[in-house]
């Protein structure tokens, strides 16, 4: 039984009240968070308030909604009315949104219990949480390592039994990479299926909200709740398909595509784990199809040009005038804005905004931004072609396992390169999942990525689910020591 289902059954059979369950999680946070640093803001009152509401419903014998009473965490870039939302930046410390993000509204309607807001790289730019103003999030699997990023806090909150599931956002791998590093499931849905309204934008054409969970089934449960059409988001389409209902489809004859370019330069341990996974699929009757993806080499520059360009525009609004960080002394408005931004934004954010400003500047636009857009279009076409003959594509989630603390900061370019497997998915707006598929020689988790065609999220989830079931490698989800009931 998946964690969410398990906890719900405990609530429904009244083995534990929602307030008790919530307190157990809050205790777990209290015990571990000073080391792990998963949460930047724990919302005790909010959590207990919701839990009480759920207990009343249970007492009244009402049926619970899929995520009702389930304690969860949320990345700090998802706006919550009257709850500080900082994007882990000095720029937004003390900023309390005046409205709710749509995904939060959905979870509120579900009476999902918000435990708090989780750590992330500043404005979701990074892959180790180390660009957060609150410092790195450590990997609960082994605290010598980071939890990854940018949704590192979300992953750590789930891995450390500090939340039943976490909501993250994924612009270039920010859900899948930390899930992979922590040995969890991370699902980045098709662009447009989950509303972006209220998620502080990094790169609007790439950002997508999704769950980090202990199991594929949990990911499907959360995704089904979140994938509603949102009239407030012009790019929202939503999804009417229940992916949970499709989880038991057979994968006999499922066509799995493998492109060798995805395996270039990955370490031996990862290679052999993925090979085993491929074998497991073959054993289950799936068909392996090899194809080539020569444009994979172009993907990183395309990603960085587009994401930085959009970020440079999206983050222009943070001038410290109406909200956010304000410098102490200035002589005029121009100096004030300059100082607010120079002092309020961290190095990585400034680097990406400068890069983005540059590629959009007149005289450079054609050479960079326009070319990147053209390439993006042709990469989308390539994927379309591949999905004519494949159901899903299988790749490593990340070419490496978790970084040691401080490692990612040494060489930003080398760190950027680690996004090679996750980034193409965002460029093409596709759904993709990272599922645990083994451990390296240091016993750090390895993640396998499954990519699907647009709006075939159910295929991705089912393929992952079947693997999980077959290998029983369900990310240690069979035990729930933290709840101890």
């Amino acid at each position, binding site marked *: 039984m998946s964690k969410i289902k398990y906890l719900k059954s405990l609530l429904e059979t009244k083995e534990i009240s929602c307030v008790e369950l919530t307190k157990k999680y809050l205790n777990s946070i209290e015990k571990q968070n000073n080391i792990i640093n998963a949460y930047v803001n724990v919302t005790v009152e909010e959590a207990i308030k919701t839990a009480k509401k759920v207990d009343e419903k249970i007492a009244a014998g009402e049926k619970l909604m899929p995520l009702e009473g389930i304690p969860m965490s949320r990345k700090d870039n998802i706006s919550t009315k009257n709850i500080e939302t900082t994007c882990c930046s000095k720029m937004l410390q003390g900023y309390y949104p005046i409205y709710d993000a749509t995904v939060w509204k959905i979870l509120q309607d579900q009476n999902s219990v918000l435990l708090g807001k989780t750590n992330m790289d500043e404005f979701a730019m990074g892959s180790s949480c180390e660009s957060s103003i609150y410092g790195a999030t450590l990997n609960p699997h082994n605290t010598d390592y980071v939890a990854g990023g940018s949704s590192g806090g979300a992953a750590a909150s789930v891995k450390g039994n500090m939340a039943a599931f976490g909501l993250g956002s994924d612009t270039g791998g920010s859900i899948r990479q930390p899930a992979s590093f922590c040995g969890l499931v991370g699902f980045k849905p098709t662009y447009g299926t989950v509303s972006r309204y209220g998620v502080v934008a990094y790169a609007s*054409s790439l950002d997508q909200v999704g769950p980090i969970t202990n199991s594929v089934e949990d990911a499907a449960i959360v995704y089904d709740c979140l994938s509603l059409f949102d009239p*407030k988001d012009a790019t929202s389409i939503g999804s009417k398909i229940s992916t949970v209902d499709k989880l038991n489809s057979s994968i006999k004859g499922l066509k799995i595509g493998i492109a060798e370019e995805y395996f270039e330069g990955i370490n031996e341990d990862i290679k052999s784990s993925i090979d085993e996974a491929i074998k497991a699929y073959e054993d289950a009757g799936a068909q392996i199809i090899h194809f080539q993806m020569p444009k994979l080499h172009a993907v990183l520059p395309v990603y960085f040009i587009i994401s930085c360009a*959009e970020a440079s525009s999206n983050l222009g609004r943070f001038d410290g005038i109406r909200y956010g960080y304000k410098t102490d002394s200035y002589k005029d408005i121009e100096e004030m804005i300059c100082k607010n931004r120079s002092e309020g934004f961290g190095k990585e954010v400034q680097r990406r905004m400068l890069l983005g400003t540059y590629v959009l500047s007149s005289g450079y636009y054609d050479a960079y931004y326009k070319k990147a857009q053209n390439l993006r279009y042709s990469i989308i076409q390539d994927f379309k072609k591949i999905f004519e003959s494949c159901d899903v594509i299988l790749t490593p989630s990340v070419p490496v396992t978790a970084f040691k603390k401080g490692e990612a900061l040494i060489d930003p370019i080398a760190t950027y390169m680690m996004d090679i497997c996750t980034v193409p998915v965002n460029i093409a707006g596709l759904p993709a999942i990272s599922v645990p598929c083994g451990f390296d020689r240091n016993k750090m988790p390895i993640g396998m990525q499954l990519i699907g065609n647009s709006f075939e999220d159910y295929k991705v989830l089912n393929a992952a689910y079947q693997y999980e079931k077959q290998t029983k490698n369900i990310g240690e989800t069979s035990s729930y020591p933290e709840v101890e009931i």
Partner: protein
Amino acid sequence: MSYELVAGLETHIELSTNTKIFCQCTTAFGGEPNTHCCPICMGMPGTLPKLNKKVVEYAVKAGIAVNCKIRNISKMDRKNYVYPDLPKAYQISQFDKPICYEGYIKLSSGKSIDINRIHIEEDAGKLIHERGGTYIDYNRGGVPLIEIVTEPDFRSIDEVLEYLEKLRLIMKYIGVSDVKMQEGSLRCDVNISVRKKGEEKLGIRTEIKNMNSLNFIAKAMEYEFERHVDILESGGKIEQETRRYDSELNITESMRGKEDADDYRYFRDPDLVNINVSEEEINRLKDELPQLPDEKMHVFMNVYGIPKDDAELLIKYKKIAEYFEEASKDIKNKKLASNYILGQIFRRLPTDWEKEECGISIPPEYLSELISLIESKKITSSMASTALEKMLDSGKSVREFISENDMQGIDDDVLKEICMRAVSENQEAVKSYLGGKEKAFSSIIGYIMKETKGKADPQKAAEIVKEIIN
């Protein structure tokens, strides 16, 4: 050496949709500062724009009305620049694929002013400098605008003014904007250059930004034209720059030079999807358009026989033109209706605003009824005038003031008798008239009208009087 003025216009028109371009806030003018705002038009982090469909419809209507082609697929772009009245640090606008392109407006001379493009964009907030500080009012932020850009086709200030009057009238007629210049719902940037007469090559241009009065536009252009000429005459060079007009000093002054020009880093707004306008949709909107002022002018002059100056006056106010059409619908002598409106009725609507609002106390049917009584010779025009005054005072129909009895007219013999009395009692006037003073004759007729309480047909009376005198 004589110089020629060359100018092109960028006109911003606020669309009169009920809600803003990307959110549900009201577009109403005024209001306490920052009360017509929401997280979306305030650009709060995480908010997203959703394009108001009405804005697209209005822009397409505007495009059709000025003979533009309409793009079936267009998109929105971001224009990035930092200014406190722009809370997102970018304005959502259209860059390389404006929704309408290649149109024109014909001036009365027959000359066409070519329209390069019309695009959709959002308005910014307003800075208020007060009590030693600067305040921001975001009420206007997110109000939908169209920007209409002409080619540099203007050769005189008069052409510019005529174009703007025409543009205003068209937008008013099709109902996409209330085009109130004093409220800033029509604002203009003028690009201006000069060259020696007969020369092909355009001179270096300057741009005068953001003017909202025809009077200021004329004055600013005049000043700027002379400034250019003076510089050229003294052997100088024009700087390409953006200038502002100071109406108090009646000068233009530099805002920023070419080097300081912003690099707007335009790129497609990833938060918004394509704007699709099908041919069917375009046709539907075309069918919804009312008769445009030029067409109306043609009908008024050539079909109704209204003199040009009068027709222009009627058309200048959409509601007045409609009132006229309604009032003259069932009568043959349309000009009579026009005369009553432009004469007695306009006297009661002294301001532009009152004419614009067509604040006439009687419905057009009442005027129509009055005129048909004249046409059927049941009452005289003199009776009609008197009655109309009473009607306008009370808002009541002509039947309240003229009885069946009044409409009987006057027996020919009785009229003859009165005419003879008029001649005998006005000998002085008769003498003057016979002495060549035409004016004196009307005092004799006036006497008759008074005696008959206006019931006499003045023409008939005149004939009888002349018979008697001669």
